[in-house]
Structures are given as C-alpha cells and as structure tokens.
C-alpha cells in the first residue's frame, strides 16, 4: 500500500458563501506523519472532517486506506482513529469507562478489550487516574486520554486535529514523542493538522501547507526549505517606512529577491546572506531609512509559507476559528 490517504479536488462551502475548501488535493504515504499546516481558517479542520467521514464535500473524492470515504464511510470508520480538537471524552465517566465504551463501539469485548484498555492506560500514564472522573483530569492528561481513545481499535490511520493546541510546552513535548513512537513502532500513518509551523517541521515526514482552502506547497520539510535558495534576511527599521522607498532602495541590489515589507519589518532572500548585509545597510541608509536591527537565518517553514502563500505567517490564536 503506497498511499494511505488520497484527496482529490475537495471543495466545500458553508452557508453565507464561506468557502472552506477550494479544490484541495493531497496524498499521504503510508507509515509516515503527514502534517497539514496553515493558519486558522485555512481549511485544515474541514479537510480532516471530510477524510474522517464526519462531513461531506460539495464535490471531489477521497480515499483512506484505499477505501472510498464517501461511498463506504462505515468501512473507513472501522480502520481509522480520530482525535478531534475538542476532547471527546465524556466528562461524567472515568478514563477507564471511556476507553471500555470506545472499545465496545468498535466491536471489542471481553478479555481482548480489557487487555487493550489496560495497555493504553499504562502507555499513556493514566493508570493512577483510570478510575477518576475525567472532569478531574489536567489538560495534558485529557489530551493523552483523547489519543488513547483514538487508538483503541488499532487504527491504520490516525487523524490528529491540532493535537497540541493549548498544551503547556512540557505536555506538548511528551505528545510529540508519543506521536513519533506511534509511527515508528506501529507503522501507523498519521495525519496531523497544526498551525505551529515548528511543530510540522519537527514531526512531519511529509508536509502540505494549506492556505485559503488549497494546498500551496507539498513535500518534505527539508525539500521545501531547500527549494528556497539562499538565506532569509529580516531587517527591523527604526521607524515604519513606506514600501515604495524600501523597494526603491533594495530593488537594484544583486542576489536579493522576495523583498517584502510589513509594518517596520523588511524581509528578503539573499543568495549569500553574509555578504548581502553590508550592501543592504548602506542602500537603506542612502535612502534615509534607519535600521534598528538585522537578522540572518537559514530558511524556515515561515519563509516557505511566505513564498507560497504570498504573505507573512501569523499563527495568532484569534485569527478566527474555522467555520465549525
């Protein structure tokens, strides 16, 4: 099996002409972590909802583990695990009760079910809290239970929708390690969405950047970054300046490309960053623009986003939730 997930030309609009997906296509190889990265509202969650049979697209098609999602949703459901953005565990029940119920839904019973539940409690360090109501769980514990719930049926493909949003750094790191272990030890395919580009960079074997309902770039994180030749240069101006003046100053400099200005920050790409710095400095000063600071970096996924989406990446939490 080569592709665990295939989506072709998915389109979906919500009432009031909100276009969530605008011809999104992707292919995720089996046995890897596939990250769908992009800002809030880009269409990541809608994609996951369609691939997990929760929602239906207006047009387009999708297959998960080779099975048509729209035609045979029940067969897909049996083979996947889903961890949504919201918890999904029932608050009045204990962790163990939640896991047992989830197992029963997938047709596990008796001893195999009990063994599976104990195994997951152990693995996600929930044994001590197993018989407490999940209302008493901390955010990190609840997230671990959510992932455990998604794994009860030993899915071939696991979907994680923004798994680390709202977690503290330590809990996030723990979850990252667990996700990496799942792919390594159990040869599972994982599709995760994230609006943290660093998370995608760290975890993903394959990455797709989503913007306005379409995939704007897809590949391994390294390949995407190395496609951007040269270094990223960021210049902080002492005072906000007009785009025209900055462009005027930098336009003619050799080896400089992708010049952009936002507020008082100028971004550009340079083939040889180190030698470009003094040239940029003097060119700006000649125009009477004062520079406060300047940084030089190897390309990051933020630069990839800038290149393909045509604007600077903001992962602000109040960027508007996707149409739910």
């Amino acid at each position, binding site marked *: 099996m080569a592709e665990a997930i295939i989506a072709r030309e998915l389109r979906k609009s919500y009432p009031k002409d909100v276009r969530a997906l605008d011809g999104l296509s992707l292919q995720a190889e089996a046995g890897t972590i596939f990250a769908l990265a992009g800002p809030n509202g880009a269409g990541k969650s809608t994609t996951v909802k369609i691939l997990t049979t929760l929602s239906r697209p207006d047009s387009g098609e999708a297959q998960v583990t080779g099975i048509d999602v729209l035609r045979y949703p029940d067969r897909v459901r049996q083979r996947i695990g889903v961890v*949504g*953005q*919201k918890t999904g565990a029932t608050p009045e029940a204990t962790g163990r009760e939640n896991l047992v119920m989830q197992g029963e*839904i997938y047709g596990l019973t008796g001893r195999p079910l009990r063994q599976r539940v104990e195994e997951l409690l152990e693995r996600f360090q929930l044994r001590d809290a197993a018989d407490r109501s999940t209302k008493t769980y901390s955010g990190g514990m609840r997230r671990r239970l959510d992932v455990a*719930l998604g794994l009860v049926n030993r899915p071939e493909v696991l979907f994680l929708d923004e798994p680390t949003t709202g977690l503290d750094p330590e809990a996030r790191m723990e979850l990252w390690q667990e996700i990496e272990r799942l792919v390594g030890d159990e040869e599972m395919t994982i599709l995760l969405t994230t609006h943290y580009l660093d998370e995608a960079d760290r975890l993903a074997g394959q990455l797709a950047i989503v913007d306005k309902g379409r995939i704007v770039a897809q590949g391994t994180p390294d390949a995407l970054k190395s496609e951007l030749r040269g270094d990223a240069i960021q210049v902080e101006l002492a005072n906000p300046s007009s785009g025209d003046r900055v462009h005027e100053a930098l336009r003619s400099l050799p080896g400089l490309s992708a010049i952009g200005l936002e507020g008082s920050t100028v971004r550009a790409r340079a083939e040889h960053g180190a030698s470009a710095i003094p040239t940029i400095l003097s060119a700006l000063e000649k125009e009477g623009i004062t520079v406060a600071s300047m940084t030089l970096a190897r390309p990051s996924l933020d630069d990839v986003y800038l290149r393909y989406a045509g604007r600077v990446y903001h992962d602000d939490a109040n960027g508007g939730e996707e149409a739910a």
Partner: protein
Amino acid sequence: MKAARHTWQITLRYLRALFRQPAWIGITLIQPMIWLLLFGALFKSIAKIPGFHGGSYIEFLTPGLIVMLAISSAGWSGMAYIEDMNIGVMDRFLVSPIWRGALNAGSVAQQVIIIALQSLIVAGLSLAVGGHFPNGVGGVAILIGVSALLGASFASLSNALALVVRQRESLIGAVTSVTLPLTFLSTAFMQQTLVPNWIRWVARFNPVNWAVQAGRSAATQHTDWNLVLTRTGLLAALLLVSAWLATRSFNSYQRSI
C-alpha cells in the same frame, strides 16, 4: 446484536451521568411530590363541579400528572445532545462505526427509565393521599407504559430538533412553547365534558391527550379497552416516526458541519 450492544453502551453512559448527580436524584424525587400536592390542592374543587364524575380529584389528576411529568422531562432530552456537540463527544461518536439509531435509542431508554421512576413515585404518593387504582398493578403498568411511549416520542423529537438547531436557546424556546400548551390542550387536568368544544376537538389530535385518555382509562374503573388500544397504537406509530426522524437528523447535522 451490534445495534443492541451499542444501544446498551449509550444507555449506560447516560445513566452514569444521571446517577452521579446527587442533585438530580433529589430533584427527580421531590418534583412529583410538589406537583401532586400543589395541583391536588389547587384544583380540588373541580370534583365538585356539576357533571364531574369519577371520584376524587386526586384520582383523576394522577394519570394526567404522570403524563405531564413524562413529557416535561423527555422534552429536554436534546439538551444532552447539544452539550455533546459542544464538548466534542458527538463528533467522536459520529466518526466511529456506532449505529446511529443507538444514539437516539440510548437517550430514549434513559428517558423511559426516568419516566418509570417518576411515575412510580407519583402513583405511590397518590395512594398515600387517598387515591385508588381500581385496576391494580396492571392498570398502573399500562398508564406508565403509555406515558413512556409518549415520552419516548418527545425525547426523539427533542433529539432530532437538537441536531437541526444546534443551539441551546432555540431548543429551550421550542420545548417550552410546545409542552405546556399541549398539556393544557388535553384532559390532563380537566374532564373532557367540561372543557370548551374547540379544546375537545383539538385534543383529539393531541398525542398528549391520547396518552392521558388511555392511561386514565386503564387505571380507573370501567376501562374502555377499545380506547386504550387505539390510543396506544397511535402513540406507537408516533414513536416510530419520531425515532426515524431522530436518526435521520444526524445527516442534517453532518451536512452542516
């Protein structure tokens, strides 16, 4: 098999939620007492109206009250759905291979258990304050049965509505504007021959009245078995339609997300 197992899991889940709330248990026990004693005292003199027959008002009131309590608890069933949508539980169920019917059936089963418990409390209280059930346990069982049938329909319709409106406020508005009028457009508290003609006419099409008539007739002397059977049949048909609607409504919910 799968359907039964899934329904049991959902029922178990709701019962757990219920019995782990001491406050709920208290309210469920006390509420019937308040209604029976309050209505019993308030409307006591109805029994003295010329043309009223059928013994004491408590005896007349008990079946009406049991039916009223059934719909007023089952009508809120959809609130649990909305809560589940908000916390993510609903989505987790819908991406699993769970039988959709179980999500409604489990919720309805919980309501039926609540209705049975509350009805038994009302019946017991009624006996304690001097009411009689001439047809004994059998009559009371039929009374509780028709109340449960009606409650199951109300619960299913409430669930269906919850899946469509997805907002607490809309559901609250709909439930309150339906249950009370339907109760008073029935013979729950007033004998049929004593209500205005138009109410009598409307009541013929009111499922609440079907349950009240069948339940009252079964529980009191001179049972009209023809009435009991036809009304029970109508209620069963209503339940089938409501349950079908509730199960179909998951499609509507899934289309909208």
